[in-house]
């Protein structure tokens, strides 16, 4: 009789001991330990499962590739780099838990992540608290690096990207009226839409309609009916490719004839797959183009293709860049202490990444150009122009 109760009890006790063996706190400020280790530990957190898992997985592939390449050429200061990756399921609270685990249990020297700004903001606070440098590959919200001096990013920020497309629409395409269809559930999309709107009006254009949807929606005909009524020349959709493909398709079905514009969220082979010929002729801003003739890019694309059997998208490239910026900083740093790593990252200047030449500014953001791509159909994105900050 007793065993019925004690069996789970015993199990709990056992698991508790297992838990406790690994949980004795080591001196938080102890940097000699990290320096004395035979390997250099990087932590990565991202959405490996859940609706946004595709972002996390692409980024992860880029990071893994960068680290493997670095290790094959001898690692850093004679140490191999090891990446510990955790899934945060696309939840900010899980992101905080995983980053806490990376820092306090696994005792990594540096953290790479996240794609979504909301999770980078939540978990960045932890990294800042423990003074462990964190590099976000592709969180474009300005607030991310405002957390503190240990938080960096290797991508441009929303205000710049928003203005890129506004400038492009006005100056290159010579359009005067625009409509916006924003994803209100994505901070990224809302930010981009706001910056586009203000820049477009500042340059003398008119935003005739500003409507919204939520990611996960599949029917946009009501919004498109309203937009069509206002007859804008361009429709700016700063969303993710998951919805943009459907929006383009339905816009075509609704006989909307304006030009579609978007941001780096469009970057995926799925965009043309779902959007079909409806999305052809649309323009979007991106961190890089795999069509870019620059040998650095072409080299990267070839290596990535042979490793994973697919064309790297922007997120994979950003993940790769975040990792090589970190590795480069580790090589340059005096010691491998977190302070040393931080200072080395902050001093990154004119570093050749796949997504352009990266310079980290005083706000710990990357100063780099954006490219504008034109969707040519069948997973082809033509390089149109580069817009410098």
């Amino acid at each position, binding site marked *: *009789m007793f065993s019925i109760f004690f069996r789970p009890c015993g199990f709990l006790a056992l698991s508790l001991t297992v*838990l406790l063996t*690994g949980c004795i*706190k080591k001196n938080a400020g102890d940097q000699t330990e990290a320096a004395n280790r035979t390997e250099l530990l990087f932590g990565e957190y991202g959405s490996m499962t859940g609706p946004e898992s595709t972002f996390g997985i692409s980024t992860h592939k880029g990071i893994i590739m960068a680290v493997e390449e670095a290790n094959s050429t001898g690692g850093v200061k004679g140490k191999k780099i090891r990446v510990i990756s955790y*899934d945060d399921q696309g939840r900010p609270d899980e992101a905080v*838990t995983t980053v806490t*685990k990376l820092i306090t*249990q696994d005792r990594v020297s540096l953290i790479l992540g996240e794609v979504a700004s909301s999770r980078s903001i939540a978990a960045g*606070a932890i990294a800042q608290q423990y003074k462990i440098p964190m590099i976000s590959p592709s969180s474009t919200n300005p*607030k991310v690096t405002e957390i503190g001096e240990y938080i960096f990013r290797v991508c441009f920020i929303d205000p710049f990207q928003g203005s890129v497309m506004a400038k492009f629409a006005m100056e290159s395409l010579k359009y005067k009226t625009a409509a916006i269809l924003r994803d209100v559930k994505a901070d990224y999309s809302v930010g981009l839409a706001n910056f586009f709107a203000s820049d477009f009006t500042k340059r003398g254009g008119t935003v005739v309609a500003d409507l919204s949807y939520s990611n996960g929606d599949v029917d946009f005909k009501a919004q498109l009916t309203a937009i069509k009524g206002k007859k804008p020349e361009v429709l700016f959709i700063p969303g993710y490719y998951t919805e943009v493909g459907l929006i383009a398709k339905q816009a075509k079905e609704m006989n909307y004839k304006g030009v579609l514009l978007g941001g780096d969220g469009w970057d995926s082979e799925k965009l043309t797959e779902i959007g079909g010929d409806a999305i052809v002729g649309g323009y979007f801003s991106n961190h890089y183009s795999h069509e870019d003739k620059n040998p650095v890019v072409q080299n990267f694309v070839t290596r990535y293709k042979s490793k994973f059997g697919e064309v790297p998208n922007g997120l994979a490239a950003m993940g790769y860049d975040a990792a090589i910026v970190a590795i480069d900083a580790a090589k340059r740093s005096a010691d491998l202490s977190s302070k040393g790593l931080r200072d080395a990252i902050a001093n990154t200047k004119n570093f050749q990444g796949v997504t352009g030449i990266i310079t980290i500014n005083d706000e710990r953001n990357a100063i780099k150009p954006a490219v504008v791509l034109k969707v040519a159909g069948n997973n082809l994105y033509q390089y149109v122009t580069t817009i410098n900050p």
Partner: protein
Amino acid sequence: MNKRFFLIAIPVVAALYGLDYFLNEYINEYVVRVIMNCGIACILSMSLNLVNGCAGQFSLGHAGFMAVGAYVAATLTTVFPAGPSFQSHLGVGMAILSGGIAAGLAGYLVGLPSLRLRGDYLAIVTLGFGEIIRIVILNIEAVGGPRGLPGIPRLSSFFWIYVWAAITGLVLFRIIRSSVGRALLSLREDEIAAESMGINTAKYKVQAFVISSFFAGIAGGLFAHYQGFVDPSSFSFNRSVEVVIMVVMGGMGSISGSVIGAIIVTVLPEFLRFLDKFRMVVFPLILIILMLLRPMGLLGHKEIWQLFRFKRSLKKAVA
């Protein structure tokens, strides 16, 4: 209040305070974080148990009340102009309490339709309310809408979380072991018979909802103030389901069962990290198997200490 209460309460509070110090000094933060998550989960599951387990009203909207508590408390300490004056332990305590009260009011509103509905309908309505609360928050720009609300002072410590967990347990336990608790149990057993024995079923359903949401709100406030950041996606339907699983796993109506359920549901996924993407497949599987093999949950209607007492009386009967 009697002497015995203080004889127990003072050492408990002192022990929690000492443990707080110990954890902060000697145990790594990740483990502390999981322990704190357990504390919050305990508050959530115990409070939901009052509605689901004791009163037999099936609610799937607990995350919504947690969201109300989290956002109200966080707004007071962060967005509100007088916010900084709240940024002390006392201030945060007041903010969390306000969050609980706001959630209680929301619980009152949700409790009202529950008067006319039962079973699955109530489940779906509470689910709907939870979603509506989340959508409303998504549309309030002042608290960041979909972007969430960062920069919340991180002042909920192990001590505060577990003091609140202890208060929750004590309050719920005392309610259940009183005439009010018996009235709630009678609702679960047979509403018509309860009504025929003079129980104002409507009144007690609403009271159960209010008390339960109040503590969910407290849990939300605590969550916000140790997370340092809240956003609507933390309070989705999945969170509600998680709490339901805790209650069901532990045993409907068993407060100590809820605590065990909360600990398992919080700690187990941490151990299952090695399963990688299969982790989220294993979890529902465990739930299904539990329902098929042990539908009453681990403890059933009983409290953990009653299992011992039951055995003792059995032994006596045998002897």
